[in-house]
């Protein structure tokens, strides 16, 4: 098992190289002159050239990329063009904000989704099922930045109960977490329901009933564990993309997270910041996916056996 984890971690290296190369290449396509932008509007041609040389922007993209990677190996992600501060600590400063929000959001999502999904499946076509599924459909269809704005209109502007943005006390968490959580909840509810319905049709559920297992226990002991296997993946992917920057929601609520850094840096052509953020987010995203795969093994013995063999 530990060999498998190690192998997966090693596999991350080519992915990170690929991702940085891809992002570096895409960003190098941008029109406009980075050096001119950094030098400022009033700078003359000579200053701009000096800046260009200083940043190494006069060299071919591939050389620039090579240098960047060499520095990255030493843990150096360069300096922000804009703030001139080191990239890595600046991003790490806002990463916990993103992580905290992601944690509360996924908690909201799972807290809503699992019970509704399970009840919907066990009482298919009942009132709860119908209402739950309509709500879930609406949840999937609602853009979360719009939902965020609606919450602001209602709870901040009209009722004045909650702050409309920024980070501070626990009150600041409520609206962003609900905004992000409900969208994911919709997805997870649908997944839980369909997975549960699939499992309930299986032969081994009939076997359990034929043994005289009470219906409640059939659901909780026999069906749920099997049904959760695909649900765990979805939860993991959702959590991964929350960590990967809830860009839109962070923008709506002026949340000082990594997603906003990316947007701001892209607008100001702050390539080292963008790259740094994307590299870190990619690693986070991949590590979460790996964690999900490992969690899988604890639920599903068949998969555990496969890992052992590898």
């Amino acid at each position: 098992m530990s060999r498998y984890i190690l192998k997966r971690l090693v596999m991350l290296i080519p992915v990170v190289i690929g991702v940085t190369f891809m992002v570096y290449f895409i960003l190098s396509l941008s029109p406009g002159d980075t050096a001119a932008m950094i030098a400022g509007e009033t700078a003359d041609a000579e200053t701009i050239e000096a800046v260009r040389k200083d940043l190494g922007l006069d060299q071919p993209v591939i050389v620039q990329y090579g240098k960047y990677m060499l520095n990255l190996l030493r843990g150096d992600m360069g300096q922000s063009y804009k703030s001139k501060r080191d990239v890595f600590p600046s991003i790490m400063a806002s990463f916990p904000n993103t992580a905290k929000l992601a944690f509360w959001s996924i908690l909201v999502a799972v807290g809503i989704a699992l019970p509704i999904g399970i009840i919907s499946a066990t009482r298919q076509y009942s009132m709860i099922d119908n209402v739950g599924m309509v709500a879930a459909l609406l949840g999937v269809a609602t853009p979360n930045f719009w939902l965020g704005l609606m919450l602001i209109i209602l709870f901040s502007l009209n009722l004045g109960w909650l702050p409309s943005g920024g980070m501070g006390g626990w009150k600041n968490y409520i609206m962003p977490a609900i905004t992000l959580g409900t969208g994911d909840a919709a997805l997870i509810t649908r997944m839980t329901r369909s997975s549960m319905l699939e499992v309930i049709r299986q032969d081994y559920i009939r076997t359990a009933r034929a043994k005289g297992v009470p219906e409640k226990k059939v659901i909780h002991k026999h069906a749920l564990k099997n049904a959760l296997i695909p649900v765990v993946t979805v939860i993991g992917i959702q959590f991964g993309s929350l960590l990967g920057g809830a860009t839109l929601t962070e923008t709506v609520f002026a949340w000082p997270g990594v997603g906003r850094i990316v947007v701001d840096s892209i607008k100001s052509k702050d390539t080292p910041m963008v790259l740094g953020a994307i590299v870190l987010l990619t690693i986070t995203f991949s590590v979460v996916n790996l964690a999900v795969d490992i969690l899988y093994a604890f639920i599903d013995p068949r998969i555990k056996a496969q890992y052992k063999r590898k």
Partner: protein
Amino acid sequence: MAEANKKDLILDINDLVIHYETEDGVVEAVNGLDIQLEHGKTLGLVGETGSGKTTTALSILRLVPDPPGVIKNGSIILDGKDVLNMPIKELEAIRGNLVSMIFQDPMTSLNPVLTVGEQIAEVIALHEEGGEKEAAQKAGDMLEVVGIPRERYGEYPHQFSGGMKQRVVIAMALACNPKLLLADEPTTALDVTIQAQVLETMKQLREKYGSAMIMITHDLGIIAEVCDEVSVVYAGQIVEHGTLEDVFESTLHPYTEGLFGSLPNIEERRERLQPIPGLMPDPTDLPKGCCFAPRCKYCTAECEKARPEKKWVNDTHYVRCTRYNEPDFKIERSER
């Protein structure tokens, strides 16, 4: 034993009718089926795909999927208790305990995320006194009884072969010493030599525990080997019933004879088989008269008018065939 003393019966099913009500029409799966089974005896239910054998077995546990399955009529008396009108609690208490079932496909009938030991122990803990530990102990014993080393208690189903899984299912079914065992094609998914092993194990265990059994199969060979009585099922109805000797040696129904004629005989290489022409009738659109009439070479206009009634030819043997109203009627029988 037509109207034998009902106290001796472990199972008494009368005029059972089960339909599946689907969007595409009503599937008439079971149409007036009777079973009377004495304690400790083995009854074979033989018939082809879609004849309603499995539905009948499931109804004894009240496990016919609903919707779409609806039990329209009839009674099921199991060891003196009325299964169809039993509260769910009581039903759960007898499932796996008084009556248990072995399903056809061992690959899918075990829960993949629980160990085989847990799955056997669960049924014991549910129905017997004593704690978890005792149940686990007995589950280990049961594994050994079906020929699996106790050490494999903690393994998962995917680590077992098909034959081994079916042994686990058998251990589970027999763990609480049921008075009635329902075996739905228990060896169909297995290889011949493994089938022989499993049948042998089942035979020994049944002798040991003295359970009655209903063996559902399409294989007349298995019937000949393990059963005391046979019921031949066609389109949800028993068309012929009797002891092994009755049905094998003095076959009455043309369908039963057709089944025998369809089998390649291992002892004699015959040039041609004698198959039954045509197909099973569409269960959403059964004929008004005898369901076998469209495929039957003895069919007369009379046969197409109404469903035939039971006709007893001796104490143990009956047939549902209109033609036996004619005193001299006989079917041609092949040598076997």
